[in-house]
């Protein structure tokens, strides 16, 4: 926790491309100020690798502000690293000790094929959203702000579920590589809002079907996803997703064939 320069040893998963063999390479990051973010530390290591003429470590990021959901590294066995409720881009080197060994791995899941090094392909999440994570509304000029009354508590709860940034840490942390927390957050967020009622039943069916089709595992309610989630998305949404799906199956008037994707 000191305000100083530290040296750390990195063991980084290197893989040249999809379906290529991968393995760990060791790098020494020297004179790293503890005010640096974890990704800035990797930038320093990469500068060094580029200077030496070696391929830099590929890792994903965009905002580096903890809001976009693009970054993601399993640091010492924990998705997004040791600090709770923090994306790896917002993790700082003061969380590490001088001389510490740090293992860096990509999200590992059948549904997230490795693209290169620490970068994985999360388009499975996009397809889950495309399957039902939308609402049908009349577009055009903005409607009157209070035209559709929504109770404060309902809006707050929907907002809690909507806090999900789609980073995929829940899948990475889950012992079964299940995408339940992500899918549940998205289904719950829309099912709570009046705007989400029109497609409610189909949404649950289609998004769950897509989640399964992507090859993610099934939930065993261990809670690893919730513990790893940088946005504190709660396990309660998984229960809600399950309820939504059962209700959709029992009550829905939609003919059976539209159900099969």
């Amino acid at each position, binding site marked *: 926790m000191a305000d100083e320069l530290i040296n750390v040893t990195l*063991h980084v*998963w290197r893989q040249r491309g999809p379906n290529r063999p*991968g393995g*760990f390479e060791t790098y020494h990051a020297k004179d790293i100020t503890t005010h640096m973010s974890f990704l800035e530390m990797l930038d320093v290591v990469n500068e060094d690798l580029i200077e030496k003429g070696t391929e830099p470590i590929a890792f994903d990021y965009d905002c580096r502000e903890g809001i976009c959901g693009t970054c993601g590294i*399993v640091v*010492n*066995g*924990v998705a997004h690293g040791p600090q709770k409720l923090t994306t790896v881009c917002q993790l700082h080197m003061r969380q590490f000790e001088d001389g510490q060994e740090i*293992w860096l*791995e990509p999200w*590992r*899941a*059948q*549904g*997230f*094929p*490795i693209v290169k090094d620490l970068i994985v392909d999360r388009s499975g999440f996009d397809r889950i959203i495309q399957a039902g994570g939308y609402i049908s509304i009349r577009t055009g000029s903005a409607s009157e702000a209070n035209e559709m009354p929504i109770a404060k508590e309902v809006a707050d709860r929907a907002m809690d579920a909507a806090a999900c940034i789609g980073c995929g840490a829940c899948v990475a*942390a889950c*012992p*079964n*590589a*299940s995408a339940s927390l992500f899918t549940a957050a998205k289904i719950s967020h829309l099912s709570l809002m009046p705007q989400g009622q029109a497609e409610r039943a189909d949404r649950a069916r289609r998004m*769950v*079907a897509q*989640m*399964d089709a992507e*090859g*993610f*595992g*099934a*939930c*065993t*309610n*261990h*809670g*690893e996803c*919730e*513990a*790893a989630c940088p946005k504190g998305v709660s*396990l*309660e949404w*998984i*229960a*809600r*997703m*399950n*309820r*939504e*799906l*059962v209700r959709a*199956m*029992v009550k*829905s008037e939609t003919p*059976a064939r539209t*159900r*099969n994707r």
Partner: protein
Amino acid sequence: MQRALTLYQTTVGKKVVMALSGGIIVGFVVGHFLGNLNLYLGPEALNGYAAKLHSLPALVWGTRILLLFAFGAHIGSAYQLWRRNVSARGSRYKRRKDLATDYAARTMYWTGPILLLYLIYHLLEFTILPAHPGDVYRNVVEAFQNPWISAFYLAGNLALGLHIFHGIFSAFQSIGANHPRYNSYRRDLAIAISAVITLGNVSFPISVLAGIVTL
């Protein structure tokens, strides 16, 4: 039926089936334990209770068939999900640290099969091939006077306690029974039921070994 089948095709539906079938089995386990308490009232009480049950074949066979279905559905779904979950990881982590998983949750796929073995042994010993048909009390006491058999029952019921501790909590989640006001009670209920069942069930072999219950 179409809808039920479609639901079962999803991972969520399979967990709902595991939760409901697990719930049926837990219900039986509770009833079975309460009936066995007759052991403490002596041979007449226990044998009388058994005779009474067997004079109601509809109840006995209805329960057996229901349980057979429940076990089939529970184990079948567990197997299918297990296959899926094993392959869902893709590649292995070198390092992986659990942040939230407790011992009971981590060992579900061990305690489950242990329970199956325990169940088969238990049925063979007391139901299918009893040493003294009709004298339930003597069968039980003679069996538990053997420390090896008692130890096996202790281990089996420890596995049972762990399995239903995570199972009861997990089942609430699987069927979507949650409400912010009552959520903390789900763990409490899981602790209460698994503690009463485990302590209660292990008290039988312990009482026999300690000489509190004798022939």
